[in-house]
């Protein structure tokens, strides 16, 4: 879950602080757009999609408060989220205004033409090595972000926009991450082994996992319940 926080902080805060020579103006514009939202409460559904996890779609509530408070709460049930997010420490990057934002070309993301901007932390000890943003300049929306970390591999975040695009808020977020193998010693579960089909094998070799959040509604700038960010 914290990975999401990371992402939102990234999109929110880096815009405030990064001083990329070429792209400062663009990032400033996006920041201004996002600054319209002081807080929101969103509802939606969340699904963890990993080859070796069979999980149901769950209802979630998402709370946000400027500048960097973010919380995802599952409406009952257990949420399974990639652990990697926990160790991504963005505070270090944010504390030092120590980035380089570089233009890295143009691309087409989800059918939109985007500008690729690479954010490099200057701090050698930062867990984040590189963040790449795919920015839809025309609509001032971030369509994709890829973060490479030292300890937890690479994350990719895809955002799709709909009726809340004016606020810069996505309708759908797909968070893609790498997974390790799932292995339990044979015999431990004492189950019958049904034969593996080729499709099963192919599926199980898939090493990418995704967490997909579909937002159904936002309640923007209407305030949020007190104490929600207290752990």
């Amino acid at each position, binding site marked *: 879950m914290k990975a999401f926080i990371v992402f939102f902080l990234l999109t929110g805060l880096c815009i405030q602080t990064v001083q990329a020579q070429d792209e400062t103006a663009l990032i400033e514009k996006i920041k201004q757009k996002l600054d319209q939202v002081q807080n929101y409460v969103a509802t939606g559904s969340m699904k963890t*999609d990993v*080859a070796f*996890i069979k*999980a*149901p779609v769950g209802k979630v509530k998402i709370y946000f408060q400027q500048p960097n408070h973010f919380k995802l709460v599952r409406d009952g049930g*257990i949420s399974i989220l990639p652990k990697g997010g926990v160790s991504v420490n963005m505070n270090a990057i944010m504390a030092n205004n120590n980035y380089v934002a570089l233009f890295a070309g143009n691309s087409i993301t989800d059918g939109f033409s985007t500008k690729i901007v690479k954010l490099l932390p200057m701090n050698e000890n930062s867990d984040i090595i590189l963040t790449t943003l795919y920015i839809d300049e025309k609509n001032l929306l971030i369509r994709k972000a890829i973060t490479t970390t030292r300890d937890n591999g690479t994350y990719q975040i895809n955002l799709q926009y709909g009726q809340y695009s004016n606020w810069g808020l996505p309708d759908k977020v797909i968070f893609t991450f790498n997974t390790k193998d799932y292995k339990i010693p*044979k015999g431990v*579960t004492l189950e*019958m*082994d049904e034969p593996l089909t080729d499709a099963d094998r192919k599926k199980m070799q898939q090493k990418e996992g995704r967490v997909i959040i579909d937002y159904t509604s936002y309640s923007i700038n209407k305030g949020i319940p007190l104490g929600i960010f207290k752990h």
Partner: protein
Amino acid sequence: MFTLLQVELYKIFKRPRTYIAFIAIAGLIAIIQLGLKLDGDAYVSFVMSNVEQSFSFDGKLLNGYLVCYIILQLLLVHVPLLIALVAADMISGEANIGTLRLLLTQPISRYEIMFAKFIAAAIYTLLLLIWMAVLALFVSIWLFGTDDLIIQKTRYLVQLSSDDVFWRYIGAFGFALLAMLTVAALGFLLSVFAENSIGPIVGTISIIIFFTILSTMSIPIFQKIQPYLFTTHMVAWKDFFDVKVNSDNNVIKGTLQNKSQIIHSAWILIAHIVFFVGAATFVFKRKDILT
């Protein structure tokens, strides 16, 4: 017939031995529940350590449903011993104390005696499982609450919504009943051949242990014979805790991944029960009572 059944049940429940099983189950379940209550999170993180390296779980992982699953997984392997204690004693026990000849000189046919005795053993088995269900499921729910049930299968992890679990337990206990009835039927068959109850009880337990080892060892030569062992099919209750997913890898609530496997295993167990009880009746009908 009903009178005979009543009498058989009366005999079962008048004996102290019968209650050993109920007490043993209550004790075992209480110990597991106590252990999990005191240090359950450590246990869960130990069991889940493999997945917890990559994932974090937010919610009540250790809930009544999981506790019940842990109990069933640990206990159902041993319940056959308790079933054998009564079922394998049904005929041999009476032969041993000499009451069998008195029973057989009453105006009752041997078929009726066998039928009533097996039904009585089956009712005992049923009550034992109900007792187990009450303690393992309802008491665990009371102690630990409910939430989604997360189960590690050999190849994947299954998350079942808390509103999609209860019926699966009904199915699992129903299937477990079938599995335990197979044990009861086996014990019943062996009890026809002996004139003391130790032999059939030990015999039943030995067969179950032997077959269970063959059923669970993943050695290629054993795997070839595993589909033919009834003990392999006795664990099919676990298939109630697996669910189908759609093309988006979304769980479809209320489905069973291996419904056909459950039905197949159920039929195999039913066939065993019919065979064991049929053979027991066939042999007993022709048996000379010399005790």
